[in-house]
């Protein structure tokens, strides 16, 4: 399992939040699937790790969850982003862009040097 990217906790939380904002209510499986698709399968996550992220976000009340029925008539727990979650997503996204641009610059310099 060494090929699986060891993604940062906060990064995964951010990705889950963004996915829920973009897609509307989704179950855990759906979220995991969606992230894999978006990343064009570059990010092969152990799908279980999604749930730790979901618990953290639920505890912070950034997402809410409710049991419902899936497309193929299966019971599943659906998550959706809350108002505070959306607000948080904006700040986090901003932060992320700033940090990633900084990291990009640092790595660029390191690469040239």
């Amino acid at each position, binding site marked *: 399992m060494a090929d699986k990217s060891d993604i940062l906790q906060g990064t995964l939380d951010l990705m889950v939040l963004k996915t829920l904002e973009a897609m509307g209510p989704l179950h855990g499986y759906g979220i995991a699937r969606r992230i894999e698709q978006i990343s064009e399968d570059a990010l092969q996550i152990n*799908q279980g790790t999604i749930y730790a992220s979901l618990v953290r976000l639920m505890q912070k009340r950034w997402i809410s969850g409710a049991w419902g029925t899936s497309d193929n008539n299966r019971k599943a727990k659906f998550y959706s982003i809350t108002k505070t979650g959306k607000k948080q997503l904006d700040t986090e996204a901003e932060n992320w862009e700033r940090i990633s641009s900084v990291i990009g610059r640092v790595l660029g310099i390191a690469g040239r040097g």
Partner: protein
Amino acid sequence: MLARPFAALAALVSRIRVWASPRAVDQEFENEMESHLELLTEENVQRGMGREEAQRAARLKLGGVTQLKQTNHELQGLPFLETFLQDVRFALRMLRKNPGFTAVAVLTLALGIGANTAIFSVVYAVVLKPLPYARAEQLVHVFAANAQEGIAGTGISYANFADLRAQNHIFTEMAASQFHQLTLTGHGEPAIVDVFVVTAEFFSLFEQKPLAGRAFLPDDGKPGAPPVAVLSENLWRVSFGADAKIIGSSIVLDKRAFTVVGIMPAGFRYPALTANAPLWIPLAQDPLFGSWLPRRGGHWMRVTARLKPGISQVQVQAELAALSARLATEFPAENSGWTIHTLPLLQMIAGNVKPSLLVLLGAVGLVLLIACANIANLLLTRATSRAREMAVRSALGAGRSRIIRQLLSETAVLGLLGGLMGIALAYWGVQSLSSMLPADLPRANEIRVDHFVLGFALLLSILASCGFGLAPALFAADSNVQSSLREGGRSGESGKQRRTRGFLAAGEIALAMVLLVAAGLLLRSFANLVSMSPGFDPAHIVKADISLPQFQYSTPRQWAAFSSELLEHIQAEPGMRDSAFVVPVPIGQGKINLGFEIVGSPPLSAGSSRLADYVSVSPDYFRVMGIRLLAGREFNGHDIMPSPRVTVISEALARRYFPNQDPLGQRLIFGFPLDSAGAREIVGIVADVRDMDLGQAPEPMMYVPFAQGPFWGGALVVKSSLSASSIAATVRADVRKIDRDLPVTDVTTMSELLHASVEQPRFRTFLLGTFAAMALVLAAVGIFGVISYSVSRRTREIGIRVALGSSRPSILRMILRETLTLTLAGLALGVPCALVASRLAKHMLFGISASDPVTFSAVAAGLAVVAALAAYVPARRAMRVDPMIALRHE
């Protein structure tokens, strides 16, 4: 940004809610995993996998469900609290499974914590707790000292007080007080009440509001003002039945009417913190001291002041030095050589007993240390036998910190159990202590187990459990998993561990030695003290106090007449022929220390003076008290006012002031009493008497005939074979025949008076003796534990030795040698510690050196014997080891 703290709070709330109902959450998560797996499986099936293969791939994709569940559990709940509670439950189970160990450990700890808490409650109430006055830290005791005459601290005259109060810039307020007793009549039986004679500022100094009525006003302090009094709440309740109309009405003190103007709440006590039901009157109206106001020379007022806020100690000292210098220049006759100083009020009140109390606290702390060492040793023993359990735990994945946490939880539970029991013991201990406390211990009525003391006990039990739990926990966590598992329960004790156990046992011996030496020294000091002869024979002597009201009996002639009439009556009673009158009676009443001059001898250089204790006695006093006459004659019935003035001096006075000459026939001049000015001829010399307490060497004393130097009261001493109660009844009846309003108070025997005078040393000797006994028992248990454990671990080795021909006595010698090594190490550590400790307790010793070799060697020998006895039981077991069984053992 507000979202973050809110998010953290929301997370915590959610965790707590989940923690309250963990089952439902686990169940929901399981359902969710199941649904996820099915969705994954379906996707895989759609991709063309077989059903079984699709399921396996799904499981791989999701990850280990058990692990996920665990993570979820930890994320959602409160894992720290959960493991803690789990640890506590486990600890309780372990303790229940080993009732013997638990009982010994909890009891030992409870004893240690209980004793410490009880003593701490005394120290806290007496020494540490702020005094019960508004901003008490600003209050200081102001006193006079005279370095040239070696007087460390005494009172201040009213005239000097008035000048200091008017001239200083460092105090917001100053007040002076004195104490005596007056006779309260008109409300049932005549009663003696404690009266504090104070200046008018007294209550405003303490910022004390009255319960009813008013405090004193400045006008009350002026000479000639109408007499007023402030009652304490207790006196108001006890003597006046809480009469609401008392304010404004008058009460009779020493046959003089005082108008009650106010009542002070029961919580206010000062200057004497022990007086239960006092009253206060202004100094100017006092029958006794009122006339002393203008006299600058007497050092008789107790002065208390409140420092201005923010004033420094340096400023205070500088100002007082300047004021002292000014007083000395203006009034050189009375004030040269005298300086004024301050002391925090709390220190003045508790300063005397503080060192003894701190020594007791230190001693009881040592007991707790020994108790902790004992429990640590027990835990180490157990840790060794639990090595396999720990090895299994760590093999199953418990981390080092997890194991330490679990073991510390066990000791914390142990510590809290011990603490709870200790607190129960402390409640009981404080109660039984209260009945034993010396009567003169200040603030004794404030001693109780309160929140602060409970906090101390709790802190102590936590500290103690950390103290005895840490080492065993660290050792257990360090044990080598592989070897422990391989060798089963047999191995596990490293050399380090054995050394620690040895060190703990030796440490216990050392600490026990410190306590035993201290107790031994105190015990011998006490024996020395009570074997001191007071200089009189206390056997069969009953003493009763009689005080004459000042307004009715105002002249010395009346005082003398009263005493001779009373003695006539008493001596005529059957069996009470041997009676006398004396003031002050030795032991317990204080003394009157006065300067005197010798006629014909050159005046002394400035700043030094001849001092002696002044006693006024009726003719038969020396015979009744059994004070030996060494030369000359005693007083007789002819030594009365018109006859030549005479005095009898003590041996110490003769030796100090008449070296190499015959004092008989020499003449002395006293400055007191005022009406007996003129020289007194020395007609006799008597043996010395310890008039203050048994611990003080006899001071020079001078006796005068009561008829020539009468007082407004004194003590009747009766030597008789009759019972004390029948003597008391007869005395009361005879006094009533003369004046039915005169109370007879403080009836006791001289032996009881002597007994009471050594209450403080007896109390601390008893306590320290108790602590030393506890220490000895604990140390013996400790040695027993170490040696029996060592024997049980060496059963196999002993078996081999016996099989190879070692004789049983040689096995016994081997075990005893081990004990002896431990004991010697302990004693080697203990002797220097005991030397340091006994130096600290030096102020409590009497007639014995702090490094008394007899006490030290007796204690060392005693400890060695106790250690040998404690080791004897396990040693006998070692001797009986059957080699065949021992070799098959394990």
